[in-house]
């Protein structure tokens, strides 16, 4: 079940990253919003991982190289603009992806239909903040630009094939590129230039190749569970 792992790991890892914001958000309303998005993603992750096996075994007992999430979602939170850039890129992708899955007849269709409303809200949240930060103050504009630029190189992976998923990848890329272009235009920003993937040919997240911060994230996430083998919680 490579596809269930790929989509489940995306949701799990991003949920975990968003959970790191708890108690650190810039305004109380965002404490609620970021936690809400994290909870939606965690819910999706639990359904998807359960399609592939035992959710806790998969989340807590796999090594880094066995995770199939895209590198984009494992990137550290950075400042709020960085997090919003990550959210914008990913939620735009996820909405289009789930849109395709919801219209199809694969085993992912029921989840995709159920999660459609959630991911539409995630995208809407990210878009609104991109507009506010891009067209806010000089400082917010610069931070937003930097976040978008830094993460740009992780966006190409979103359109790579996923084993077991029958997707119209051209439509996915077109939809994503149009949507991001339109939001950035309204935010008075420009689409980053440069390649949408790194120069390394060894592969990326979907092949189990991750970035350095991911290992530390898993160490923290898995530590307690692994310290008590066989225990139930």
């Amino acid at each position, binding site marked *: 079940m490579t596809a269930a792992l790929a989509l489940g790991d995306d949701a*799990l890892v991003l949920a*975990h990253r968003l*959970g*790191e914001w*708890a*108690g*650190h*958000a*810039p*305004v*109380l*309303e*965002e*404490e*609620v919003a970021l*936690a*809400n998005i*994290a*909870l939606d993603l*965690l*819910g999706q*992750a*639990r359904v998807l*991982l359960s399609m592939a096996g035992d*959710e*806790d075994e998969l*989340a*807590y007992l796999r090594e880094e190289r066995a995770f199939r999430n895209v590198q984009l979602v494992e990137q550290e939170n950075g*400042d*709020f603009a960085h997090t919003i850039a990550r959210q914008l890129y990913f939620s735009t992708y996820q909405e289009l992806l789930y849109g395709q899955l919801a219209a199809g007849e694969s085993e992912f269709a029921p989840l995709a239909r159920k999660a459609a409303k959630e991911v539409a809200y995630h995208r809407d949240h990210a878009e609104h903040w991109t*507009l*506010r*930060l891009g*067209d*806010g*103050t000089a*400082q*917010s504009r610069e*931070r937003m630009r930097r976040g978008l630029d830094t993460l740009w190189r992780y966006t190409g992976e979103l359109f790579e094939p996923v084993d077991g998923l029958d997707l119209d990848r051209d439509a996915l890329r077109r939809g994503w590129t149009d949507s991001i272009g339109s939001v950035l235009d309204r935010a008075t920003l420009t689409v980053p230039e440069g390649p949408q993937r790194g120069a390394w040919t060894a592969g990326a997240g979907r092949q189990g190749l991750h970035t350095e911060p991911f290992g530390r994230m898993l160490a*923290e*996430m898995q*530590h*307690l*569970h692994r310290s*008590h083998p*066989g*225990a*139930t*919680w």
Partner: protein
Amino acid sequence: MVATVVESESAGAEAYAEAFDAAVAADERIEPRDWMPGDYRATLVRQMAQHAHSEIIGMQPEANWITRAPSLRRKAILMAKVQDEAGHGLYLYSATETLGASRDDLLDKLHSGRQKYSSIFNYPTLTWADVGAIGWLVDGAAITNQVPLCRCSYGPYARAMVRICKEESFHQRQGYELLLALSRGTDAQHAMAQDAVDRWWWPSLMMFGPPDDESAHSARSMAWKIKRHSNDELRQRFVDICVPQAEALGLTLPDPDLRWNEERGHHDFGPIDWEEFREVLRGNGPCNDQRITQRRQAHEEGAWVREAAAAYAAKHTDRLHGEATA
């Protein structure tokens, strides 16, 4: 609603005060537009702000475990709980605004130490079991304190508390259930649960505030029906509730003097270390600095985000206005 008072010079302030007293005596709700004594307003702002601050500071000790929760189910429950606390903070700041306070000003007072939050959050969460102990004991004590506030004389506070108490009761149950799973788990898990209860029991009893004869604001708050029961009364109620629950959990409460008193119909319990309470209140608890530093830091680091949102809103209001008048 307070009965309408005919506004005339002869009626004057006295008539307003009488109407207020009559409304409180009749168990009616005071609403934001009703006249109220200045001290009543100030007492409510102080208490409600402290409550709101406690919700947002209280997120920290639990958020400390979100990234390490040992199962995905527990991670989801904990995230939802911490999110509820942010939500409670929001309702309570909003309810405080009905009294003329502003959230920004209240946050300034929190950050500069001019307003307090519940001292319990100055204790650290050292193990996963602490998440359970906070739910069972700290939220349990909070509910015991807060259920009577659903009948508080000030309408917006009372209504906010109805919703908050419903969610708190879920929090308390998840804590109890978490501890039960640990207590019935491996020896190491059981020991972790017992250790957490040992550390959180006495601070939880302190959450009801100083003994009645030393409580600075109690008598007046009772007269105004902001408060309905005394500190000692609520503390006793809490102890009586916890004892059978601890037995069901298979855990012991760390008090050698704890025993049923047939004559009183209550449990007797040992003396509380009020010196520790005062020290923590004074700022010398294990986490006072850490909690307020994190809160201040989040606020300061978020300043540019709030400024951006304000600048964007202002630009777009101008643009809308410009289009309308063009």
